[in-house]
Structures are given as structure tokens and as C-alpha cells.
């Protein structure tokens, strides 16, 4: 009995100490300001009104001085407001919901695999083991061309998939925002592995008859983190172009990239990547301040490509039979961890409250000067953010991040459930996760969201958003018909 009590007491004491410390450091300015204000007030009261007037007259202000000082103040204020970066608002976004005809249950995937890879039973068993542990559900979707035995990835089928996904997402976005195609000033489309001529952004311009002076960009080859790269690009463009709308479309077209060989390291993407896409409307117009859902606070990009191992860890190449596929190296998780560390080192000072930064600084100094054996202090990001959207790259990625950032199951719920329902939809998965949080009714005004994505290269990109107005549970969207079934418990291994 006495053993347990001291532990309990000490842990409670520690908790309160921690809370007290945080409160003190985060509001330190207030703590300094209050005594000063009180002091001045007491002094004024002590002096009395006549003394105050005397002090005021003794300052000898003359007209020129007054004019100059006010001019200076106005000048400084103007410079400050002019050089402040424009606020970028996320007005609305829409995610693509694949039709039921594209659904691929585990059993169908395995049966097709067995038929296609008749001569490589080991590869088939490998795929089965991956699928069992993948964290995917039975409702993920693949495009129609991949349903064939063997798949028929023609250019026409790829274009068909692109049109279906992109136009569906944009159509639903336009319906939600009531925006006209002619109002769009900037268009950015990112799709990593499918890059036809004319580009996908040209396809969008053609379909919606966008203006001839539109600023359109097409980002290809940038991997799963391209979604946040597009947001970063849109932000920079919206700084230069006042009063504009930017339409960002993030997707990944599966049809041309289904690996048809039997190398194990290259079969992994087949098991995880699924159909999906999202369209996002960003604006820097003043009037969208009211109706926008989110405001973009920070975008931090980290590129580890300078390191050879990081560069080669997700590598598209031909297998010994000449079939093209994406090779995932075995140290992918380690490299992802490094990239994440790099990213949070940059983003930490921008978002963490002062208490956490101070602790981190102290431990850093301590490790460098006193004792290198001290455990590095991992700042508590839960104090900086209410919601986390971790790219649903795979179960391992989410597990790794949950461990590294010490997040609870509820924080990573959006990521896990998106992986279960939609699979790895590459750059658009962050938007499905955000949609999940909104559909669950958890998004309140003032909430801060952290979106983290990893991609080939090796890149780790983050975006920080602040919720502008409480989001009412949407009545449409990809989660609308299944949100009541979630969260589901995802077993370690699904028995096929």
C-alpha cells in the first residue's frame, strides 16, 4: 500500500508541476505585464490628476514634432500591413467517392493475383501476407481497367480514370462553393505517375472552359507529398496575385502503374494504392474570410534527396523481366523517421508553445554540454494541434508516427480509418482524413490541424491549418454513407 501511494502522489504532483510550468512559460508576457501595469496604475493614483497634467505640460510638444511622430507611426504601420503576407483561406474542398462498381474485396484481389501470377506462388503468398496486415478494408476501389485478368492499362483507360476522378471531384466542389469556372485564376494539378500530353491541367481547362489567361501548373513525379507542394505553390502564387481563386487538384491515377511483374519489393504498391482524388479551392479574397473553412498558417517542406539512400528508397525501375514498377527499399521506415525529425525541427519553433520550446532547448543544451546520454526531449505536439492528418501511406507509417510523436489512438483515428475505407490514395489521402474529422463533427472554430505527408525523393512536407468556423457535419462527401460504421477495430491480421 505505501508503495503505491507515493507513486500516485508523485505522478499527480508531476502533472501539476508540468501544468503550472506550461501555464507560466506560455503566458510569461502577461505575467510580466500585469505587475508593471499595476505599478503604473498605483503610481498614477498616488500622484493625482494635477501632477499628471504638470508632467504632461513639461514635455513641450510643438507642432512639428507632433506631426513628425504621427507621420512616422502611420508610415511604420503602413509598411507593416503592406508587407504582411496575405492570408490564404481554404474555402472548401471535395473528395472523390469511387462507385461501387470499382470495389475490390480482399478475396477478389487475391484470386486475380493467383490467376495473373500463376507461375510465382511465392509472390502470391507474399501479397496475401501484405494484404492481411495492410490495414485496408473491403471497400477500397481500383479503376475498371485493373479489374481485368490480366489488367488492361491502356492510355485510354488511364485518361478515362483521370477524367472520372478529377471531374467528379471538381464538379462536387463547384456545386458546394457555387463558384463559376471563369472565376478561377490559378489551377494546379498534381498527379505523380501519369503525365500525358496535353497535361491533366490542360484537360481540366478544356473540360470547364477556364479563362485563357489562367495560371495553370501540372506537377508530376513528386510522389505522395505532392498535395502539400501544390498547396505551397498556390500560397506563393496567391501572394503575388491579389484577389484570386486557386483550384488545386490532387490525385493519383492507378491504371498505368499497376505492376505486372512478380518482384516482391515492387508488388507492395499494388496492394496498397487505391483510387482517390480531391479538389481544393484556396482564396486570398477578403470576402472569403467569413465563409472559408480553414486558414493556412504554415507550410514546411523538407527534402532529404541530398542523401543517396533517401533518394533511392522509393525508386521506379524495371525488374529483371523488363516490367516497370516502384521499388520500395527495406529502410523506408528509418528514412521516413529521419525526414520527420528534420521536418519537426523546423516546424517545432513555429507552432510549439514557449514551454515546450524551452524544455527542448534545455535538454538540447544539456545533452551537448552536460551529458550526451540524456534522452532527447520529444516536444509534445498535442499542445500545438487539436487534429493530426498523417498521410495514410500504410499501417507501418501511421504506427511509426504515432510512436514518434506519442499520439493517442484518437489522434491517429482519422488516418487509420481513411486507410481502411479508401486505402492509400496518395496525395489526396490527407483530404479524406480531414473529411473524416469533419464528418465526425469534431472540427471546432480555432482548432489547429497538422497535415503531414511523405513522398518519394525523400520528402516530408507539413501544412498547418487553423479552423476558421465550426464545421457542421456535412451531408455529402465520401464518408456520408459509412461514417456511422466508423471507427472500426482493425485487427492485426485479417484472416482471408
Amino acid at each position, binding site marked *: 500500500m505505501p508503495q503505491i501511494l507515493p507513486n500516485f502522489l508523485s505522478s499527480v504532483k508531476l502533472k501539476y508541476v508540468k501544468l503550472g510550468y506550461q501555464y507560466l512559460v506560455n503566458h510569461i508576457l502577461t505575467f510580466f505585464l500585469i505587475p508593471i501595469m499595476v505599478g503604473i496604475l498605483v503610481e498614477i493614483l498616488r500622484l493625482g490628476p494635477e501632477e499628471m497634467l504638470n508632467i504632461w505640460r513639461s514635455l513641450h510638444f510643438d507642432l512639428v514634432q507632433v506631426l513628425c511622430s504621427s507621420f512616422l507611426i502611420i508610415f511604420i504601420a503602413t509598411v507593416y500591413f503592406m508587407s504582411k503576407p496575405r492570408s490564404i483561406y481554404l474555402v472548401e474542398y471535395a473528395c472523390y467517392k469511387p462507385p461501387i462498381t470499382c470495389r475490390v474485396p480482399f*478475396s*477478389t484481389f487475391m*484470386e486475380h493475383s493467383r490467376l495473373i501470377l500463376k507461375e510465382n506462388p511465392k509472390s502470391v503468398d507474399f501479397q496475401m501476407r501484405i494484404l492481411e496486415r495492410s490495414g485496408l478494408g473491403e471497400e477500397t476501389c481500383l479503376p475498371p481497367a485493373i479489374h481485368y485478368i490480366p489488367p488492361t492499362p491502356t492510355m485510354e483507360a488511364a485518361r478515362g480514370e483521370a477524367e472520372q476522378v478529377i471531374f467528379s471531384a471538381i464538379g462536387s466542389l463547384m456545386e458546394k462553393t457555387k463558384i463559376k469556372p471563369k472565376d478561377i485564376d490559378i489551377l494546379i494539378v498534381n498527379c505523380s505517375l501519369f503525365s500525358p500530353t496535353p497535361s491533366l491541367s490542360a484537360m481540366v481547362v478544356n473540360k470547364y472552359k477556364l479563362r485563357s489567361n489562367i495560371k495553370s501548373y501540372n506537377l508530376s513525379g513528386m510522389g505522395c507529398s505532392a498535395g502539400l507542394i501544390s498547396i505551397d505553390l498556390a500560397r506563393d502564387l496567391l501572394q503575388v496575385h491579389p484577389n484570386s481563386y486557386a483550384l488545386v487538384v490532387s490525385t493519383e491515377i492507378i491504371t498505368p502503374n499497376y505492376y505486372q511483374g512478380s518482384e516482391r519489393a515492387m508488388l507492395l504498391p499494388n496492394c496498397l494504392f487505391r483510387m482517390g482524388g480531391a479538389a481544393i479551392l484556396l482564396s486570398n479574397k477578403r470576402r472569403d474570410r467569413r465563409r472559408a473553412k480553414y486558414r493556412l498558417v504554415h507550410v514546411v517542406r523538407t527534402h532529404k534527396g541530398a542523401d543517396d539512400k533517401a533518394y533511392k528508397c522509393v525508386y521506379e525501375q524495371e525488374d529483371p523481366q523488363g516490367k516497370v514498377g516502384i521499388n520500395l527499399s527495406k529502410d523506408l521506415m528509418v528514412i521516413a523517421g529521419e525526414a520527420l525529425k528534420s521536418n519537426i525541427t523546423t516546424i517545432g519553433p513555429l507552432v510549439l508553445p514557449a514551454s515546450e520550446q524551452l524544455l527542448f532547448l534545455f535538454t538540447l543544451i544539456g545533452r551537448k554540454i552536460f551529458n550526451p546520454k540524456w534522452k532527447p526531449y520529444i516536444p509534445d505536439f498535442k499542445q500545438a494541434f487539436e487534429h493530426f492528418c498523417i498521410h495514410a501511406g500504410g499501417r507501418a507509417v501511421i504506427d511509426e508516427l504515432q510512436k514518434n510523436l506519442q499520439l493517442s489512438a484518437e489522434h491517429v483515428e482519422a488516418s487509420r480509418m481513411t486507410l481502411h475505407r479508401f486505402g492509400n490514395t496518395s496525395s489526396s489521402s490527407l483530404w479524406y482524413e480531414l473529411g473524416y474529422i469533419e464528418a465526425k463533427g469534431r472540427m471546432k472554430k480555432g482548432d489547429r490541424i497538422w497535415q503531414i505527408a511523405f513522398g518519394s525523393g525523400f520528402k516530408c512536407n507539413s501544412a498547418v491549418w487553423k479552423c476558421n468556423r465550426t464545421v457542421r457535419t456535412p451531408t455529402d462527401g465520401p464518408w456520408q454513407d459509412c461514417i456511422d460504421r466508423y471507427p472500426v477495430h482493425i485487427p492485426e491480421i485479417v484472416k482471408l
Partner: protein
Amino acid sequence: MVSSMAEGLIYDIKLSSVGPGTVTEPDMVHEPSDMDLAMKLHYLKVIYYFGKQAFEGLTTLKIKEPLFMVLNYFPVICGRFRRAESGRPYIKCNDCGVRFIEAKCEKTMDEWLEMTKENASLEKYLTPNQIIGPELGFSPTVLLQYTKFKCGGMSVGLSWAHVLGDAFSAAEFLNQLGKVVAGEKPNRPINLAHLKTKSTNSGSPLTNMEDPLSVKRVGPVGDNWMTVNNCKMEAFSFSVNATQLSHLQSKISSNGTDFSPFEALSAVIWQCIAKIRRESEPKVVTICKGMEQNKADGNNQLISVVKAAYPIVEANPGDLAVLMKNAALDQREKIENAIEKDNGVSDFIVYGANLTFTNLEEAKLYEFDYRGEKPSYVSYRVDGVGDEGAVLVLPGPPKNGGRTVMAILPENEVTELKSELKTEWFMI
């Protein structure tokens, strides 16, 4: 995948799968009954021939869409077989789906029907021919083949494992598909499967009973569910129009007893085959009939045997018909006991164990309505028939009001039967 068969007659073949649109709950299983397992080596093959209008302008995706919706109501046919610890097969409803095959034919539908009149075996190219096995867990039980003809007509070929149900169940599936295409909801409950129950291993006190007459023990075939024949079986069909039918019925009837078209046709064919087989004439025949009352899925046919005490060749067809009408012995319980003896592990055949006559007159084959079009002709046969052969009496095209007869017999008997029917009974 582009491949072709029969020297390019059927080409541009593409395989895919279609499953239910919504997720079936996990761990749902369907346990076939004893009767179902008795039929597991047989496969129903039905071909529906549609004119141009039925499928005009439809892309493959549009054809697949209603299938996704109707399969929500048929979780059992989307599942795959597994074996329980006792060895008894059961179906795991894992949404794997039916196999969907697209093909093209270089002939027009009329040309094709002409060709098959002479050579009925060509029809096997319009239905998928995959059996269940060698891997039970990866073999689809239902396969669909949509073949487009040069003239724009389409044939829908269904391969239906008999273990799932009889012809009435198979027809029900496609009729419900027709309903979904028309925009109606199928009038079926969604989930007919159930969670696996602990299978009671009934230690059998019936080990000493003999196998019933209507079935033949074969194999063991293991996980390759197909019948091995000692001779090559050939199928041929002929139609009997309404006038010929009434003629036949009146010719045979005696003492004022009227016979149904099935009884009349069966009696006549029984005698013809007896004539052909001479010494080894079939004294025992099996009769399968659908049960009007039982509309459930599965094998609900009434299987009975008829034993003739006298030589068939000299008998009066009218007497044979009377035998079939009155002296049929219900074999169902005996069959179920035979299966139960070793808990469904042994392999049996029903069709072809004896010369089998199947009455499918009431099967709703012509009710499959696709976008307001009914099939112009339906061809039906059974694969995996044993050496004694089988004769199926099917409904004819509604306009003619007669019957279609499909006979599956050893190939050396076919020509003789054809000439016998032509000369003696003026039927072909």
C-alpha cells in the same frame, strides 16, 4: 487478355470479376444441404439469346452495374468453397464474386443458330467451362459470359454449379437481374447466409445401408469437382411444337389417362433408347421434377426412380408413361442418408447414374427480361452427366408453346436416337 477459340469463331475474350456492391458481414457462411452436395459434380449451362435491342448502346460498365446491385442479394454465389475439419464443404461468403467474361463472335446470331442445329456441341463456346477445382477456395461457382454477335445480338451464357441450386434457382438469379436492370428492387431479403454453426458430426448408425438407386458413388475426385466419363458424351436438342405434342400425347394415352408433355416425351425417348441399347436396356430410370411449393434457393427437386419389371423394348409407351406417373419412388431421404453417412465427403453423381429424365417445363427460363426484351431462344444443358445419359424437357419459346428437349448421351447413341425419333415418331 486476347485469346480465341474454335479457330477464331469466338475471339477477344476478356476476364474480370463482379462482386456485391456492399460489404457482406465477415464470417458469413452457407452450408450446402445433403441434397446440394449430391449434385456437386454437375454444372448447369444456360444460354439466353437476345436480339439487338436488349444490349444496344451499353458499355461493359453499364452491363456490370446492375450485376453489382443484384449480387447484394446473393451473397452465397459470390462466396468460395472451403472444407470444414470433417471434410464437408461449405461456402465462405467472402464477396469474391462471379466471373465475368466478355467475348465476340464473328457470326451473326442467325448464322450461329443454324450452325448449332447441326453441331450442338458448339454451344459450349458460349458458356464458361471452368469447373470447381483444383483449388476450391479460388474457383468461382457462377460464371457469366456475354458474347456479342456480328449482328449486334448478345448471348448471355451462365455456368451455374448445381451444388448452389437447381435450374429454378439459377433462373431466379437471372430473372432478379432483369428486375434490377428495369430499376426495380429484388423481392428478396438481403442476407440469407448465417454464421457458421458447429457442425454436429453425426456418427452414423446407417453405415450398413446400401446406396440408393438414383445415385452412383464415384471418385474420390478430391478437389476436382468433375465427372469422369468412360465414353464421350454429346448433347443434342430438338424442339417439339404444340401440334406435334398434342399428337404424341393422344397417341400414347390409353384408358382415358392423360399424360403431361413431360411424361409423354420421356416415355417415348425411354423406349427409343432401350431399342438402341438392346441388352443393356435401362430398366431403371431416375426422374427429377421441380417442386412448386418450395421456392427457396438450393436443390429442391423431387428425385425418384422408376423400375420396370418387364423388357422396355416391347412395352407400350403408354404403360411406361403410367409407370412414370404413378410408380415413381421418392429417393430424397435415401440420398440424404447416403451423403450423411460420411458427412458429405464422398462424391456422387445423380444425372447419368441411371438414364435420367428431368422435368423443367415449369422453369421460368423465358422470364429473364433485359430492358424490356425477352430472350428469343434459351438453350439449357447439364455438364458432368454420367454415362447413362440424361434427357431434359424444357419449355419452348413462348410463341411456339411446345417443348425443347435436350438429350445428353454417349456420342455413339446420338445418331441412332435421332433417326429413331425421326422415323418412328416424326419428331425431328
